[in-house]
């Protein structure tokens, strides 16, 4: 069969499909999102976006226990949310296979921390596989189901950004659908209360020993002997970096199974090489395993726990080789990401800025409201924390109630903001929560969610009514504003901060990148009327720049939202033809 160029996440989806996956439930998170998006294109697999990763993992485990091969995917911080069912799922084991994909983000291309998910495999005592390119993504995802059933254990597939988001060649095969296995009632295995769980812990420990023994001879861990002056123990994309930097001048032990790890083949490999390096991004996970077993390796003392590795880093450290680079002596300003031209969040943040409030922020496109010139986010911790941290802030000092708000997107609110809102209502803080409802999960690239009225496949679905939900948990003051209308938005914020009870403002306007959103004609600046006061530039719209002492609007970016028009005191911003 001809080889196809596929992104790692697409290859994982294909591997799951070929491996006979039947039930898929995930929450989007860069760089893992596309796995589930690609799965949703297979009609013979049930797939869904869950409200959060914990729900997704529970759906998948429930399906696996019921006898269907199941999957859930998430980014590294999503595994924090899903960890409870994963830890207990390690004890219950599965019936049909359960594969979990977790995508780490070394270098933090799109994340709030740089955690190393391999620690979860060790802590939860579950097997973890790590592919190094798209072909292995497909192969390991497929293999994951077999291993999960062979050892009666969840199997985690660990990706990193460069594997998840790189395209390389894969060979696709046929689907092996094993159907739905029989479910047999077995409380000793599936009801995790103390008496049963004690028995299961014994099973888990024996399973780890069995898996470690398997890891000594499994085909996922392989040795490539070349020149033995340098030996490299590695896994994932670092294997590719090492091969490019060192080629046949080094020998390799490539671990496809990073937990549990073998020890005999590592010891044997190390004994054959003069100098052994462990090449792994983030924490010294493999390195500590080697050193704990008395194997002399060089790891983090020569490399780093921060950011990504690369072929040139490896060439520099191991071979002392550096590549020449040319450059100009120009001073090059940075280009940080910005809210898009026409983004509905912009008007909301501008209105907040006028109120000079402290803003408890959250995870999504609107986190970009932290950057200049808006600069209107004070904290950003994790999904949902905007709401609960605002409650904490207001309990710390009730004076904060009149000058603090939380901002949270529609999808993030459903993920874990609503629980914080329940806390606000139940434990009575006069908190003002603003839900930025742009009718989509934006930052991860437009996924449906429980508020959008559509399923992952685009079919009609029950939509959560945010107004009714807020009222149902006990918030009486709920109002909706259009963030393109600056006056209305500002007035609403002012009023809700002033009242002596909690309130929810829903700032509602669909993301401007949604296909169904109609764009107005680009606006233009009448140079005769423009006084060059730069009032329109306070909102940080990327379509507006300043040339020859006048504002200029870039017609390729402007969508005619009209927010800048409301800021111009001289009527210099006009509708385009």
């Amino acid at each position, binding site marked *: 069969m001809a080889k196809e160029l596929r992104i790692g996440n697409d290859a994982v989806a294909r591997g799951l499909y070929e491996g006979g996956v039947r039930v898929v439930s995930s929450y989007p998170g860069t760089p893992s999102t596309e796995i589930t998006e690609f799965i949703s294109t297979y009609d013979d697999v049930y797939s869904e976006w869950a409200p959060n990763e914990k729900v997704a993992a529970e759906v998948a485990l429930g399906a696996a226990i019921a006898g269907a091969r199941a999957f859930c995917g998430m980014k590294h911080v999503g595994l924090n949310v899903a960890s409870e069912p994963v830890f207990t799922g390690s004890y219950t084991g599965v019936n049909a296979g359960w594969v979990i994909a977790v995508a780490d983000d070394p270098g933090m291309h799109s994340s709030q921390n740089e955690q190393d998910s391999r620690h979860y495999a060790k802590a939860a005592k579950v097997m973890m596989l790590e592919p190094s390119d798209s072909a292995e993504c497909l192969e390991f995802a497929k293999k994951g189901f077999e291993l999960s059933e062979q050892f009666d254990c969840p199997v985690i597939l660990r990706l990193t950004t460069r594997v998840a988001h790189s395209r390389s060649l894969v060979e696709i095969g046929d689907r092996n659908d094993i159907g739905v296995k029989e479910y047999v009632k077995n409380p000793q295995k599936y009801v995790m209360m103390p008496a049963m769980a004690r028995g299961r812990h014994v099973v888990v420990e024996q399973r780890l020993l069995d898996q470690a023994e398997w890891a000594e001879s499994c085909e996922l861990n392989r040795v490539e002997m070349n020149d033995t002056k340098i030996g490299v123990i590695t896994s994932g994309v670092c294997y590719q970096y090492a091969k490019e930097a060192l080629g046949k001048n080094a020998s390799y032990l490539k671990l496809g199974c990073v937990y549990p790890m073998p020890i005999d083949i590592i010891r044997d490999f190390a004994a054959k090489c003069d100098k052994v390096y462990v090449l792994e991004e983030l924490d010294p996970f493999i390195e500590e395993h080697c050193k704990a077993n008395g194997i002399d390796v060089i790891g983090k003392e020569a490399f780093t726990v921060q950011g990504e590795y690369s072929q040139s880093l490896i060439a520099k450290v191991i071979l002392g080789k550096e*590549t020449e680079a040319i450059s100009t002596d120009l001073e090059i300003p*940075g280009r940080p990401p910005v809210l898009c031209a026409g983004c509905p969040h912009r008007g909301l943040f501008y209105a907040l800025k006028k109120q000079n409030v402290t803003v408890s922020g959250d995870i999504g496109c609107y986190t970009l409201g932290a950057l200049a010139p808006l600069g209107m986010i004070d904290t950003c911790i994790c999904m949902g924390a905007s709401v609960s941290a605002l409650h904490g802030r207001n309990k710390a000092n009730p004076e904060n109630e009149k000058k603090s708000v939380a901002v949270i997107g529609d999808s993030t609110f459903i993920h874990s903001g609503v629980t914080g809102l329940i806390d606000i209502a139940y434990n009575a803080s006069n908190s003002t929560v603003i839900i930025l409802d742009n009718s989509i999960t934006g930052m991860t690239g437009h996924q449906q969610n429980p508020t959008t009225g559509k399923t992952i496949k685009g079919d009609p679905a029950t939509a959560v009514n945010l107004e009714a939900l807020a009222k149902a948990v006990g918030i009486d003051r709920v109002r909706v504003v259009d963030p393109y209308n600056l006056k209305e938005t500002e007035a609403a914020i002012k009023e809700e901060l002033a009242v002596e009870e909690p309130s929810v403002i829903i700032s509602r306007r669909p993301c401007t990148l949604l296909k169904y959103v109609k764009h107005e004609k680009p606006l233009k600046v009448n140079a005769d009327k423009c006084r060059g006061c730069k009032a329109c530039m306070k909102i940080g719209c990327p379509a507006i720049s300043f040339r020859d002492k006048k504002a200029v609007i870039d017609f*390729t970016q402007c969508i005619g939202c009209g927010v800048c028009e409301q800021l111009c005191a001289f009527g210099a911003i006009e509708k385009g033809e």
Partner: protein
Amino acid sequence: METKSIMIVGVGGQGTLLSSRLLGAVLTAKGYDVKVSEVHGMSQRGGSVVTYVKYGDEVYSPIIEKGEADYILSFEQLEAARWLPFLKKGGKLIVNTQQIDPMPVVIGAAEYPQGVIEAIGATGADITSIDALSLAVEAGSSKAVNVVLIGVLASKTDIAYDTWVDAVKATVPAKFLELNLKAFDLGYNYK
């Protein structure tokens, strides 16, 4: 064959991802081993974006490092200067002369440097500058900048014209095909 490296750089939202997909289709059709590395998520929102395309007999690392790129295709002037250190000695740089102010410039915290093209030329780099935006508008849409630039790149490789056209046909939606083929030709025939 030794691995060749192409970098596509620009500003999030300029359509750099389509160009890498198109390049991937061409190189796969030629039977090469290919790796393409993209960036998704936050940095796509108007930030500086980069895509790596590598091909050869056997490609290992999906990323390109300083001094390694045989070609850099830049969708914007400032981005060309930013990523210039990634160009290999003797590599070729294709630059769209479009200028998009980054936020530090918009808010007056920094200045957009003057004479970017000249400064790059002065380093001795092999540079082709082109007003791809005007050519894209001529083809029928400002969004076709990516295909114009791919046309320029195509004219500098030894891969046949027809292979490129087939890839354009396979990559762009049918209703925009005519427009994109025109955009490709405008780039391909640019002198």
